[in-house]
């Protein structure tokens, strides 16, 4: 079924436009029934989604987007209540198609990264992300050494952030430099640590103990020559003249050299 009755539409309309207690069950049911066969067909027609059993994921994303946008994007789009059943159907299909397109782009990007990862692994330029227990122990030791060292806090955070990006996002070291600069450049060191702690908690060899965390926070409380607390400084304040990516790469290499020396 891809058509609903006016009665069904008005049920959704009344449920959503109840300012005291809006509910979304009727919207979810109507959307699922109306869009199910189209989502299935779209997934089949898209070469990167075909055969991947993505229908449920796409539908879930559609429902989330409909719930988020139903008031601002349809029912109150022009500042007054809109109760046009056909308009709602068109709007719902537009949202659904956009979600499917975004989803397909995301899958394409992941497939591209995976193929690049395979290439890098086969020519030996990248270490595997999910590591053996032996490697995990080695990484854990290196991690502890870096945290316990006297290396500048912004370099330590850079190193951990890069590990985190590589582990979480399945990207190469070079790609991780780009991502690091793009996403951390504007953050304060305090925020950067906060993000790292949140992201690292599920990676055994990257998770921080309370003691290590306290040590990092202690370093962030130190003040610089200009009297500003380190944790309040923005990450990009520390870039060298050679530019953000070269700086990040330089810091990570220094730490890796430090680890290599310690290993000897």
């Amino acid at each position, binding site marked *: 079924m891809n058509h609903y009755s006016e009665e069904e539409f008005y049920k959704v309309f009344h449920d959503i436009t109840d300012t005291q207690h*809006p509910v*979304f069950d009727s919207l979810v049911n109507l959307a699922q029934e109306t869009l199910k066969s189209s989502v299935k067909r779209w997934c089949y027609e898209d070469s990167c989604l075909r055969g991947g059993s993505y229908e449920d994921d796409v539908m*879930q994303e559609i429902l989330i987007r409909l719930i*988020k946008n139903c008031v*601002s994007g349809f029912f*109150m789009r022009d500042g007054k209540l809109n109760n046009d059943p056909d308009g709602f159907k068109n709007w719902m299909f537009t949202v659904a198609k956009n979600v499917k397109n975004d989803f397909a782009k995301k899958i394409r990007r*992941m497939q591209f990264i995976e193929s690049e990862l395979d290439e890098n692994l086969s020519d030996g330029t990248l270490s595997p992300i999910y590591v053996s227990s032996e490697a995990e122990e080695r990484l854990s030791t290196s991690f502890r050494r870096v945290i316990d060292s006297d290396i500048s806090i912004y370099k330590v955070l850079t190193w951990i952030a890069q590990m985190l990006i590589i582990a979480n996002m399945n990207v190469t070291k070079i790609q991780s430099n780009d991502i690091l600069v793009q996403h951390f450049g*504007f953050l304060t060191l305090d925020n950067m640590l906060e993000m790292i702690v949140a992201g690292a908690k599920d990676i055994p060899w990257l998770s921080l103990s309370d003691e290590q965390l306290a040590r990092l926070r202690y370093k962030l409380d130190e003040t610089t020559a200009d009297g500003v607390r380190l944790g309040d400084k923005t990450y990009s304040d520390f870039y060298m003249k050679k530019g953000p990516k070269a700086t990040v790469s330089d810091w990570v290499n220094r730490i890796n050299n430090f680890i290599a020396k310690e290993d000897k």
Partner: protein
Amino acid sequence: MMHLSVDQIIDFVSFDSLEETNMKLAQTVNGHILTCSECREKVKDFQSVFDELVRRNADKSLAKMYIKQSAKEVLKENNASL
């Protein structure tokens, strides 16, 4: 009229599951923006920025962090200029 907080709006535009807490937040936000045009516009703006960030890098938690940090900076600047 009480308005939505920036944190509420950011949590709303960035939630990514249909779990109960998110649905409660959706009730609060959608219920409010039915009658508050100011917050409705804010929600629209935050939503389009968040969607664009996700479209570009596909990582929702980073996009959320970015948007929170930017909002904080803007609020800090606004307070400083008052």
